[in-house]
């Protein structure tokens, strides 16, 4: 990953050990103005990483710096600038949507009640309804309204768009793109809906079994990576330098090509499909990795 002059988040050698799982030496940075997607299978360590970034758990070793500040020493200041939407985490069910405005304006220095009401209108959320009367999707929209209404600089979303219908999910994705337009804000989004990340992410971090397997820009993935379906004999003819991973089927082989332009220069008739984020994830988990990129 390129290193920009100012990072909104720096994670360095983060390690956390549980009985059956270890988050092992995780390091990455998130520059300002970027949307970074965090992908991985269930149990890969995504939520644990996000918990560590939000100071929700104590880490064994490593450093986490948000806005160039240590979370343990500047927790209040950092959280003033972070908006978080986490999966299955809703507001207290007995409160009205309007109660939340009163609570948040006493908590956040830059809480904007007018903006919060605008989001309630935009997402069709009635202010006079109790949280427990809202559907799951409406609760997610409410969480987004809250996360965006105190003018945060950094959004952290953990499976935040699951449960939303495609229309509102598309609207949320647009909001996120607008959010980073000024190049001062950033988004870290962990999601199984890889098509969303295909649409909006600037960088992809792939985690597997507690470790980061790759960090790539979306542009690099789109330009260089591809998926080739070919017969076994053609696959045997390829040089191992041409591909990162493969999955052998009964009659064909799926190959993750690392430099499709170079391969197309040799085999002009080849059909190499665009590699999506989901493709890359599947190759890394189910395929045979031939070399680390």
């Amino acid at each position: 990953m390129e290193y920009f002059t100012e990072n909104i988040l720096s994670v360095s050698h983060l390690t956390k050990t549980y009985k059956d799982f270890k988050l092992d030496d995780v390091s990455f940075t998130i520059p300002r103005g970027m949307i970074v997607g965090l992908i991985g299978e269930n149990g890969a360590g995504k939520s644990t990483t996000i918990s560590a970034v939000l100071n929700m758990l104590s880490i064994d070793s490593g450093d986490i710096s948000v806005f160039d500040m240590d979370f343990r020493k500047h927790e209040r200041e950092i959280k003033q600038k972070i908006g978080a939407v986490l999966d299955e985490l809703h507001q207290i069910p007995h409160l009205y949507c309007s109660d939340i405005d009163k609570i948040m304006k006493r908590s956040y220095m830059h809480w904007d009640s007018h903006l919060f009401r605008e989001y309630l209108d935009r997402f069709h959320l009635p202010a006079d309804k109790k949280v427990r009367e809202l559907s799951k999707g409406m609760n997610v929209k409410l969480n987004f309204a809250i996360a965006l209404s105190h003018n945060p600089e950094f959004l952290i979303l953990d499976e935040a768009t699951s449960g939303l219908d495609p229309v509102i999910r598309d609207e949320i994705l647009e909001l996120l793109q607008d959010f980073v337009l000024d190049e001062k804000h950033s988004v870290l989004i962990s999601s199984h809906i890889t098509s969303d990340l295909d649409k909006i992410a600037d960088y992809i971090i792939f985690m597997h079994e507690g470790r980061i397997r790759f960090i790539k820009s979306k542009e690099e993935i789109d330009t260089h990576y591809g998926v080739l379906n070919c017969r076994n004999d053609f696959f045997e003819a390829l040089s191992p330098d041409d591909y990162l991973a493969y999955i052998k089927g009964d009659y064909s082989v799926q190959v993750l090509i690392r430099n499709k332009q170079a391969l197309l220069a040799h085999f002009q008739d080849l059909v190499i499909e665009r590699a999506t984020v989901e493709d890359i994830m599947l190759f890394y988990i189910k395929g045979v990795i031939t070399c680390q990129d």
Partner: protein
Amino acid sequence: MSGLVYRDLLTYYRKNTKVTYILEVVYFLFFLLVLRNIYGAITFLVIAAPISMSGLPATMKDLDSNYKGMISARLMPYTQRDIVTSRFKAAFSCHLLYLAEMLIFCILHHAITGDISWKTYFLLFLGGWLSAIFITCVNLLSSFITGMNAAAIIYLITTVLPVALFLLIMLTDLYEIIMPLFTGNHPYIFWIFAVLLDVIMVAVSYLISVNRFTKQSAKL
């Protein structure tokens, strides 16, 4: 941390149904108008009101555990120490309403019966509040160091035990032994001891709660 205190208090009052408030009025009127003697005053001021006063920690623990209320709080711009402090503040702020209720009870009870001295009302009021502080501290401490089931059991014990002790004292000779401690010639030693006990209990429960809570990890 006013946001968290406001959140806890608002949640506590929103969670209580109309039935809860109706029952509060029924208890108040029963001890004022039906059982209108010293025993009614003692029961309301020293037993019923303190038990009602100390309900917030158990209610919030239920919401923290079943609705991830504590994780929501952790996402807000507060440290873990702030969260514990605000919970303590909210729990003791809750006392204010009940203290006002107790004061109104004393005034109305005196107006209706007229046979209890203001000194006795004051001592009953003070005794009730001191026991409420103690019970609240126990419940706050249990909410931070135990799980939901254990906290609920402890809350139940702090509700049943005062009632059981009260009945034991009133229905046996213990009443004749204990009452002079409160109203005799030198009751100051007892009251000073009771106040000191509460101060120590508040300090100890707060420090242990902060210590244990800052070591916990929130589970997403």
